[in-house]
């Protein structure tokens, strides 16, 4: 039963929710990795969207997780029905087909990634901050109250809103509840392994944008990225250190998964505009990008409340550069209109 639940939450659900992003407009084919990445973002987005009112007004974990389950289930059924009806599955390009050529070069990134996955499963990094985050996950799982206890000692306490808004520890509790696996195993072993894989899918997508149709270069790029991740532990503050030592903590998800994903979004935005040579072209379809910008802000808050600063800053700088390039104020105005989730969570952050 646990295996089926794990497959549902880590494979089927991201896959189905990914199709929510790319319904009709996407060209003839959709890549599995792209569906998967954005599907996971929707999974986190829905989680945080439902989690926020619960943590503000009613911190009963079972009520929250039942609500989330109903939402995930309804969406899954609807999206599965739509997939089957439209026979879209045949249009998915699998990752496997992309590795057929240039096998030898792919050994460079894949061996390093496999090593990191091995280390993530069979080695432990005893991080002190887990006394807070993982203890919160376990407390919600065992006591049915979210952020109701001081995690270090277990005494009851008022809600710590700055930490409480970022729901990743509760997301781990939720996955534990649904799979019957202890939060420490879920967070330290299963979820962190999933996140390592997911992060490299983002880098793989980036490689494809930086080196279009050049598999050798894509493999080399991914290899260097994996190498830098593994040798980036110069201090405790680097993205790379967070990625491989504190993988399941929200800050690590932000630093290693969300931030490269924002760059990917900027690349995609720029590429579409390049195709039509203008931001005003009638055929230029950007609505899904703006929707993704809204969703990723909320998904990022699930990782860390600091997302209200980091996400608008990176996207803002990127879109400002694009705006200057196209000499049209429209992209920046659209972006500013999409910033309401960060504004909302930012106000909550400052109020508490």
């Amino acid at each position, binding site marked *: 039963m646990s295996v089926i639940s794990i497959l549902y939450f880590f494979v089927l659900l991201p896959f189905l929710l990914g199709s929510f992003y790319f319904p009709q407009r996407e060209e003839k084919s959709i890549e599995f990795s792209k569906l998967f990445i954005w599907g996971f973002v929707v999974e986190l987005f829905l989680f945080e969207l439902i989690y926020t009112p619960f943590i503000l007004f009613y911190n009963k974990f079972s009520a929250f997780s039942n609500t989330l389950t109903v939402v995930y289930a309804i969406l899954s059924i609807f999206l599965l029905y739509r997939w089957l009806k439209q026979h879209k599955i045949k249009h998915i390009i699998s990752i496997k087909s992309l590795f057929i050529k240039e096998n030898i070069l792919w050994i460079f990134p894949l061996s390093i990634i496999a090593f990191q996955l091995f280390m993530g499963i069979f080695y*432990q990094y005893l991080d002190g901050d887990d006394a807070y985050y993982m203890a919160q996950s376990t407390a919600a799982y065992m006591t049915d109250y979210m952020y109701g206890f001081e995690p*270090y*000692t277990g005494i009851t306490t008022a809600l710590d809103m700055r930490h409480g808004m970022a729901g990743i520890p509760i997301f781990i509790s939720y996955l534990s509840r649904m799979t019957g696996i202890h*939060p420490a*195993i879920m967070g330290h072993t299963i979820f962190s392994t999933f996140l390592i894989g997911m992060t490299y899918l983002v880098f793989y997508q980036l490689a494809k944008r930086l080196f279009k149709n050049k598999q050798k270069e894509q493999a080399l790029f991914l290899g260097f990225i994996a190498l*830098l991740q*593994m040798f*980036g532990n110069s*201090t405790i503050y*680097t993205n790379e250190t967070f990625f491989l030592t504190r993988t399941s903590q929200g800050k690590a998800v932000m630093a290693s998964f969300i931030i490269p994903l924002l760059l990917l979004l900027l690349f995609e935005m720029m590429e579409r505009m390049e195709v039509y040579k203008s931001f005003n072209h009638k055929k230029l379809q950007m609505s899904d990008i703006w929707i993704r910008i809204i969703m990723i802000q909320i998904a990022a808050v699930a990782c860390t409340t600091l997302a209200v600063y980091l996400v608008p800053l990176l996207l803002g700088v990127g879109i400002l550069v694009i705006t200057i390039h196209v000499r049209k104020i429209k992209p920046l105005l659209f972006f500013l209109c999409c910033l309401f989730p960060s504004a909302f969570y930012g106000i909550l952050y400052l109020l508490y």
Partner: protein
Amino acid sequence: METGIIQQIIDAYHNYRGSSYYVLFFFCALMFLLFTEKKKTIRLILVYSSVFLVVLFMLPPFAWLVTKILGEEIYYRTIWLFPIGITISYCAVKLISRQQSRAKKVSMWVLLVALCIYGGAFTYQHSDFTKAENSYHLPQVVIELCDLIKEDGMNVKAAFPREMVTYVRQYDSTILLAFGREKLLPWFGGDHELHYALQDKVLDTKNVARILREQECKYLILNEEQKLLEPFSQYGFQIFTRVQNYVIYLDKEKPEL
């Protein structure tokens, strides 16, 4: 404002960089791409946006505003937004691709891989990385101790040795701790009477027993080698059991919370 904030920017940068050459590589890669990159999308997103972010990060009024609103300790996280790994990797691949012959390409690859290894720090060399004792990724002795003292559906309070307090509640939240990790961290301020009393080379048993009672702490876990002024049994604490090098004492006089 200016001197203090400039120092904070420098500190954030140095704290992030450490002894690594990656930030230096990143700046070199940015310069290289600034002069050689022809693809518009990459210039805009990877190069110009990065330069913009770096300038913004170093700008004192920006740093002042951010640290005022969000706090000084998190300013370094702005550096997370610099695409350091992506830019270095992209540049490395470009350098390899520029080589004409296969031998030159392989040599360049070897050189760049060596530079990446030399310029960084291997994550798994860190002393905190150890072979996992179980799938919880928690010390096995803590799990065994918790399993022995936990009571189904009931909270139980215990005092664990300081080296264990980080892990106990990750495993079982029905175990309440007399003092937790916050007492080990200087920035939380203050000390805990029991934590302080347990630091003595020879434990003042009477004093420790008194504090445990006051805190309604049912169990005390001590290292077997811990020296005691008097036996705990004189004050109602009996040896409950032993696990590896640890002894669990149970308060027999006041077993209920």
